[in-house]
């Protein structure tokens, strides 16, 4: 019975392995920046750290939606396009002034949510695989946006948004405060609400969720809707930060949202993962991105590093439980029947 007690300690709320992963990722980000500082003493000023945290907000917000969707066992490949659409919409509707903001803001966000809901509908009712549905939907709406804007991309954004992204309260940039609030709110929503709990269940076992009678279709549509909404918010913030909008401004963020979720320890097949982990992943990637820029690495290297990080994070994830078991000197709790790696390698 000793292993049951130890295992319960391991699995209790305060010591979830996912929390440990998230903390490790944050530590990794700090170590990375320290290493950079050693190589390049000019690096690492307070302003730079503040900038890293500020610019992490786009990923922090957008990756939340991706995280919800991945929790269900799906994926959202339309996030980049939706971010761009949000940016273009708010810029086009406000056209450099604050007047239209009060109605332009909700219209933009509702549109983005609608794109997400459309994703959810196709996935839940037409049973189209998520990566296809979201990729196809995103491509289609990109086409719509291309047509509507007739290709011209530069736009100016309402000043209020720009102020939001650059203001400071008590010396701390507003966005940094916002990411803190978002972390708390997002974590509560994902882990402490009934809907969040049901998302975990559906992602863990779709068949069992059916037998128990969980509202699978409704929650699927809602999750993708939220993902669209988050992408929309991130797009707005990005437009405010850049003071302009282009039709491809969201593209560089799509893969990092997936990377953030995976680095943060969430299982890509669903059912496991904390938002805190995704948050840590977003911070990590933001720091990495800044370092890459400082090192003047070309776009090619950027891609290679990004791809490599996703793969390394996936590999480390499968080792997650083994690491913990070594710490606890227990048999891994997620062993498949043959004692090999869990989850995907059943045979």
């Amino acid at each position, binding site marked *: 019975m000793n292993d049951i007690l130890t295992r319960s300690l391991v699995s209790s709320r305060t010591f979830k392995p996912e929390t440990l992963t998230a903390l490790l990722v944050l530590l990794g980000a700090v170590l990375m920046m320290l290493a950079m500082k050693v190589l390049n003493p000019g690096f690492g000023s307070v302003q730079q750290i503040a900038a890293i945290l500020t610019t992490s907000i786009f990923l922090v917000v957008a990756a939340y939606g991706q995280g919800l969707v991945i929790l269900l066992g799906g994926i959202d490949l339309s996030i980049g396009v939706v971010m761009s659409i949000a940016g273009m919409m708010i810029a086009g509707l406000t056209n450099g002034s604050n007047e239209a903001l009060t109605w332009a803001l909700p219209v933009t966000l509702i549109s983005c949510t609608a794109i997400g809901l459309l994703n959810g509908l196709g996935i839940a009712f037409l049973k189209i*695989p998520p*990566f296809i549905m979201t990729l196809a939907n995103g491509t*289609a709406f990109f*086409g719509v946006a291309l047509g509507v804007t007739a290709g011209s991309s530069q736009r100016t954004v309402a000043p209020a948004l720009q102020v939001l992204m650059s203001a400071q309260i008590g010396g701390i940039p507003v966005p940094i405060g916002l990411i803190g609030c978002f972390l708390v709110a997002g974590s509560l929503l994902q882990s402490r609400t009934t809907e969040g709990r049901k998302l975990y269940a559906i992602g863990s076992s779709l068949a069992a969720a059916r037998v128990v009678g969980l509202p699978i279709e409704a929650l699927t549509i809602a999750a993708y809707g939220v993902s669209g909404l988050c992408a929309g918010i991130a797009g707005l913030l990005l437009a405010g930060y850049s003071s302009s909008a282009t039709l491809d401004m969201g593209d560089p963020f799509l893969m990092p949202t997936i990377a953030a979720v995976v680095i943060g320890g969430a299982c890509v097949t669903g059912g496991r993962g904390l938002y805190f982990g995704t948050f840590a992943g977003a911070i990590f990637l933001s720091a990495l991105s800044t370092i890459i820029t400082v090192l003047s690495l*070309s776009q090619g290297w950027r891609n290679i590093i990004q791809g490599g990080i996703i793969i390394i994070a996936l590999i480390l994830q499968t080792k997650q439980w083994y690491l913990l078991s070594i710490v606890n000197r227990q048999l891994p709790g997620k062993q498949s029947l043959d004692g090999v*790696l869990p989850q995907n390698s*059943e045979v």
Partner: protein
Amino acid sequence: MSQSTRGQRRPIPSSAFAALLYGIMFAIYLLYSPSAISLAGITDLLNNTIVLAIAAAGLTLVILTAELDLSSVGVIAVTNVIVATVSTKVPGGAFITLILVCLIGLLVGLINGWLVAFLGLQSLAATLGTMIACQGVALLILEAPGGEVAAFIMNRLTDTVFGFMPVAGLILLLAVAGWLLFRRSRLGIAIYAVGTDALAARLSGLNVKATKWLAFGLAGMAYGLAGYMLGAQTGTGDPRISNSFLLYVFAAVAIGGTPLGGGRGGVIGSVVGAGILTVMQKLLFAVGVAEFYTNIFNGVIMIVAILFGNLSAILSLRQKATMSQHRGGQLVPN
């Protein structure tokens, strides 16, 4: 109505529906572009189809094992830029580049296969990672579209041979012939077995991991070849990745009657599916549909392709592998 040469009996293969659809599309296209039936027209059509067809053929192998592979566009980018940079610089460049791209494609594919089969990573995420990394490598080789493909490749491979056979057509015929043979090999049979029921395959003594690994490897080699042919078609190298093309590769497989769940379908259907998508694009162009609709079309067609694939699977009266029928305890329920 058994076709015992295949060891599988089925009333109507779903690739037959794809062939029917192709016939219809081609007929409509012919109405708008009567020159399509000429040798030049057919050569042109086949040239437009071949890159997608080869890529889709490769992807089919992976999907048959019930895995996914997003890396096709990444490998195509890498091999395409290599053709555009190396083929003119080396004597016998065309041939050497061909070997090179096949090896590179094979290497990437085997890495994918290793990640998925031996390390147990989820295939969607893992191949997404390799796709991005591949694009990075492509950008390192060639920062922007450019380069130059050896004249030999560009001219001879898009031309006809023996006076009447388009080279692209010949390649496709070889691919189809190769597939018909491969299907009867031990690896080919193993791929179908693993995709249908990996556990039963293992209990039957098949090496599931090695089968998947090799499937990914062969797919990668196909992608490499597709990148080479892309060089032949465009004459330049492009390190960028097209989301639309990725959608098309999956659409071709889906239309051709290979469900994403694995275990059923085949390369022939995917090649026909690639043909359908190409004709459709040319048809839209011939009809005069505005360019900006293309993206919307690409997105919608993918969804329609999946639905069509599901429909044709039902219509061809294929029984789904009913696992519950032979699982469980002594009095096993259905």
